């Protein structure tokens, strides 16, 4: 379950998912998604450990001239072993994506629930602020931020997290809005349960469905986003071995030496498809679960 659980683990707010996850895993496409995700996850996590002895080279040493087919998958633009770099290049991508997603979720959920619950001016204010952030496309935002602050890891995480937040906030808000009309919220109001407690104990458990779906979705996007930034040369910096960066460095020679591009592209594709399959089945699961609740 690594993705989901790992991701869930990062997200303190998702309280009691087991039933949901159980329903999710019942679907074949969830199983497929799990397999795909796990495969890439394994590659990414174990890769760094495997590199030297599996390929005989570290990800930075030189094995020949650039863009030759020395080694299993040839060499890259600096004559380094493509396969070694590939094995070494997934970890950061995934970690950064996960962190960014977690950040976005925490901020977004907090903001969204507050907005929906307090309503009125606060709500309006927060949501307008949201719209402002949303009016700058994520990439433009990232471009600006990264050129201002430089392409350090934390900048990536924060930028992506921040750009996710308003989108997550929207979802959270509407989910919350749907829940707070329910009488059990009014009931706890009646018993003067503190507002924060209402949000945490009454509202949150009832929006985990949409939230986890959003979580999966954002995770998928984050992966693509981190990779895309590296691909634009604004993400990971050389000589780091990173899938996005590999694509950026090797694409000029796609004809001569396609592996430098195709391996990472394939990995990213499989990973995102995997996570998205999981997310999708999660969505279905939570959907028919809510049906269950409504009787």
């Amino acid at each position, binding site marked *: 379950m690594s993705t989901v659980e790992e991701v869930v683990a990062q997200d303190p707010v998702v309280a009691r998912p087991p039933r949901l996850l159980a329903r999710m895993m019942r679907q074949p496409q969830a199983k497929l998604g799990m397999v795909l995700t796990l495969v890439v996850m394994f590659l990414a996590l174990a890769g760094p450990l495997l590199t030297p002895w599996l390929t005989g080279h570290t990800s930075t040493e030189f094995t020949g001239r650039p863009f030759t087919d020395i080694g299993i998958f040839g060499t890259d633009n600096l004559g380094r072993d493509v396969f070694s770099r590939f094995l070494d290049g997934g970890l950061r991508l995934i970690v950064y994506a996960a962190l960014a997603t977690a950040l976005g979720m925490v901020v977004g959920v907090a903001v969204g629930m507050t907005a929906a619950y307090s309503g009125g001016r606060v709500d309006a204010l927060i949501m*307008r602020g949201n*719209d*402002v952030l*949303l*009016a*700058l*496309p*994520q*990439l*433009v935002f990232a*471009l*600006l*931020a990264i*050129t*201002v602050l430089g392409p350090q890891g934390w900048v990536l995480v924060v930028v992506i997290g921040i750009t996710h937040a308003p989108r997550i906030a929207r979802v959270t808000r509407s989910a919350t809005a749907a829940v707070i009309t329910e009488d059990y919220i009014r009931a706890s109001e009646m018993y003067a349960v503190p507002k924060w407690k209402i949000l945490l104990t009454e509202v949150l458990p009832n929006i985990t469905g949409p939230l986890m779906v959003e979580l999966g979705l954002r995770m*998928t996007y984050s*992966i*693509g*986003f981190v*990779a*895309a930034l590296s*691909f*634009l040369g604004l993400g990971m910096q050389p000589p780091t071995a990173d899938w996005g960066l590999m*694509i950026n460095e090797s*694409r000029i020679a*796609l*004809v001569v030496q*396609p592996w430098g*591009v*195709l391996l990472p*592209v394939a990995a*990213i*594709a499989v990973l*995102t*498809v995997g*996570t*998205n*399959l999981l997310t*999708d089945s999660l969505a279905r699961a939570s959907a028919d679960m809510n049906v269950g609740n409504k009787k």
Partner: protein
Amino acid sequence: MIAKMITKRLLVSLVILFVVSLLVFVATLLLPGDPAQAILGQQATPERLEALREQMNLNDPVWVRYFTWIGGLFTGNLGYSAASGGPVTALLSDRIQASLVLMGLAALISIPVGIVVGTFSALKRGRAFDHAATGTTLVLASLPEFVIGIGLVALFSTSVFKILPSVTMAPPGEAVWNYPVQLVLPTITLVLVVTPYIVRMMRGTMLEVMNSGFVEMARLKGVPERQVVLRHAVPHALAPVAQVIAIQLAWMAGGVVVIEFLFRYPGIGQALVDAVNNRDVQVVQAISILIAAAYIVVNLLADLVGILTNPKLRTEKAS
């Protein structure tokens, strides 16, 4: 009533645009490095630097610069490109065209395709077509745009078939659309990125609507199925889908950057990346604002569509 709603929307949009402009301006202020230096390069003598700084009124206080700039926005004068010294508008005009052509093509293809495919897989729920459609869209929806792009390139222009150009290379000064074959891959990429969302949304809403009371009623009235779909169901599904389409179009405004970069497409996306590297502050500002404006306008339109297609709102007075 409705007029009020619309004007309210408009005002809100304007405010947002204003705040965004502030954001962009501040952000570009923070860009490290001296634009003047950036333009003149390392051979520049202090005298020339100073002269240029003066000419770009980099020496004015910040707020003055902001207002000269914002004022320019309204007079359609986006300032002078630091890099070229020429007016930004002139610099961007044909790039904007190029981007619009690309996005327009993509939209033209993906919207109808999305709606039709979505509707069909909803009607053919659970059948082969539906499974195929949902499967494909799910996969496509999960792929980052540049992955799709590179995939296509590898497939159609380098590794498997070698039938399509992988980069746009209009001889300088010529419009991109004089070389349609070069537009194919970028367009397809955009379409493949955008369509899945439309399909999925259309399918979802159609399924909902087809289960709704009034569709059942229409059937029980003996209305022929195709009329039920075309007259009762589809119109209802369109409103929410319009939202998604708007979001997708808006997304294109930003997402096109990566794709243009990938295909060397001479649009605003690439211009933005270049400008950021050249510290061409004016251009960065202009493009960011442009994209933001486009985004806001599209969303506004979606809202308006929503308002106008909703009889409840349209006839507020009557009731």
